[in-house]
């Protein structure tokens, strides 16, 4: 009898021990969750999760119930775990803090370290620790392959030759650019770029003046695809004639928004796209080719 009782939990532990009716009201937690648990353990998630334009788990989330994310819709799912983001559904999450249902709130990831931390935290909560560690290991291996000069994507990056690096700026609406301490900055560094905004002393997000941008002479301007497609009242984001005239050689790289909107395992794809662009550049040809031979 004791033998049986010991064998029982070990065989079914990963599946039955954790919560079985998980509700997520944030797209970013939707994505993390579906990579860690099977869809049948998810009782509800956001309506964005099956939109292939913004979600990287659109296929996996097909059969899962979609909820608007307000208090009543969450309660209707009878959840045993609620997941949300720091800035999403603030009032809803506050409500659940005073209920018996456990709530996990995830901050916006600002580095790959943050993503690893989020994966570990969620994996622990849903009883899928091994799967979580496997995902993290794969991400680290991928990142190391993309930029061999870095230390497995952990901690600050050790650049082999800072001088030869491409200088880039990540452009957003109304000249907002991510500086130091943002996830976009982490992606740029992981791909071997130097972020002009960080050089100019911008922390978090700041505005870069068009005049300063031209003066800084970036090699690459990075866009997210959503931004590239969205028209602004003032015209195309970078349609200003002064940019075309003063920076005729600047290359423009577009990263699909869904790789960046959340810090998730697929954010490695954003690094892959950037790293490819860095190698294609005239400045980086020598160094990056030799790096590729090494690996």
């Amino acid at each position, binding site marked *: 009898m004791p033998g049986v009782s010991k064998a029982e939990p070990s065989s079914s532990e990963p599946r039955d021990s954790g919560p079985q009716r998980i509700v997520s009201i944030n797209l970013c937690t939707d994505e993390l969750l579906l990579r860690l648990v099977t869809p049948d353990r998810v009782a509800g998630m956001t309506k964005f999760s099956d939109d292939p334009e913004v979600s990287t788990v659109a296929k996996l989330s097909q059969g899962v119930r979609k909820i608007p994310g307000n208090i009543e819709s969450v309660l209707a799912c009878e959840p045993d775990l609620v997941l949300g983001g720091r800035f999403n559904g603030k009032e809803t999450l506050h409500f659940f803090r005073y209920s018996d249902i456990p709530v996990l709130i995830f901050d916006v990831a600002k580095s790959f370290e943050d993503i690893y931390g989020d994966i570990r935290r969620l994996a622990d909560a849903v009883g899928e620790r091994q799967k979580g560690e496997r995902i993290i290991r794969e991400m680290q291996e991928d990142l190391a392959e993309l930029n061999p000069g870095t230390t497995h994507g952990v901690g600050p990056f050790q650049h082999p030759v800072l001088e030869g690096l491409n200088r880039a700026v990540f452009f957003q609406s109304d000249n907002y650019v991510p500086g130091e301490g943002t996830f976009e900055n982490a992606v740029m560094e992981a791909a071997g770029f130097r972020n002009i905004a960080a050089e100019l002393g911008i922390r978090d997000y700041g*505005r870069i003046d*068009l005049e300063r941008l031209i003066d800084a002479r970036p090699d690459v301007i990075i866009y997210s695809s959503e931004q590239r497609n969205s028209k*602004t009242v003032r015209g195309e984001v970078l349609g200003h004639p002064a940019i075309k005239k003063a920076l005729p050689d600047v290359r423009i790289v577009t990263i699909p928004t869904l790789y960046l909107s959340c810090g998730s395992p697929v954010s490695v794809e954003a690094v892959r796209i950037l790293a490819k662009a860095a190698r294609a550049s005239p400045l980086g040809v020598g160094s990056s080719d030799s790096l590729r031979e090494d690996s």
Partner: protein
Amino acid sequence: MKKNTVKEVSPFWLYVVLGTLLLAAFLGSVSVGALKFSLWDALCHPSSGFSFILWDIRLPRALLGLLVGATLGLAGAAMQGFLRNPLAEPGILGVTGGAALGAVAVFYTGLISIFPMMLPIGGILGAFVSVILLYLFAGALAGIQTLILAGVAINVIAFAGTSLMLNLVKDPYAVLDIVFWQMGSLADRSFEHVFLILPFVLAGWCMLLWDGRALEALSLGEETALSLGISLGSLRTRIVLGAALCVGASVAVCGSIGFVGLIVPHLLRPLVGYRPGRLLGASALGGAVLILCSDIAVRMVPSLMELKLGVVTSLLGAPFFLFLIFRLRKKIL
């Protein structure tokens, strides 16, 4: 009427002074920016980065400031003259709000991707509808309260419409973009914007400046104006169309920049001897000076986030508006 301490200035000297101020403000506007370099260097090295910054960023910005500032000053003076009401101003009366709604509607419905000219046209239509509404609500000879109330109502309607569209927009960046655009700014505009609105603005100016004599006659009373051969109907049409054309086009490109049409005519009125006709040209020059100076200030204030021009003019104008109401209080009650 109490004696005024400020004396009328001869028109020649008034225009010389205002013209000089405008020239100085314009030169100041092209000299100031995030980067410091001498204009001479930029002019001498035509393919340097500084040259592109001067010709493609700063010059169109200064030109737009001139166009928009003159438009707002002129429209304010014309509306005050026609309504015979010192508080009439495109922003307070909801014309600017209507233009913003029109431009956002064009943007939101995607009409803008068909034809860029739709943006100023949307702004003009919005402004036009606002002026018509204002006229229907308040009539030609409304008292100050009625006029201001009608303006409040139109502003509320326009704001509700704009909010509705912001609410329905799917693209989060578009929301941010529209919100910032509404604060009013001249930053990062190009010659495309200047040429986009230039024909409308010039047409609007002509219609408003044309009315100088009629406004002077009107200041003597409707009867007198009629006896002097002024057709009030066509004067009204010109004022409504002219204000809608230039204000609508300006707002469509630069967002809502408020209170210029209130401050400038009020400061200049004693200098032109309280004559609404002569106030028109002077207010156009004065409005351009005010906007160019404010735009210089916006770029001089050291802050990570550039202040929006409309925010600065509102900070200047709102206390001024309160002050005017305070002075007019006796008249109102």
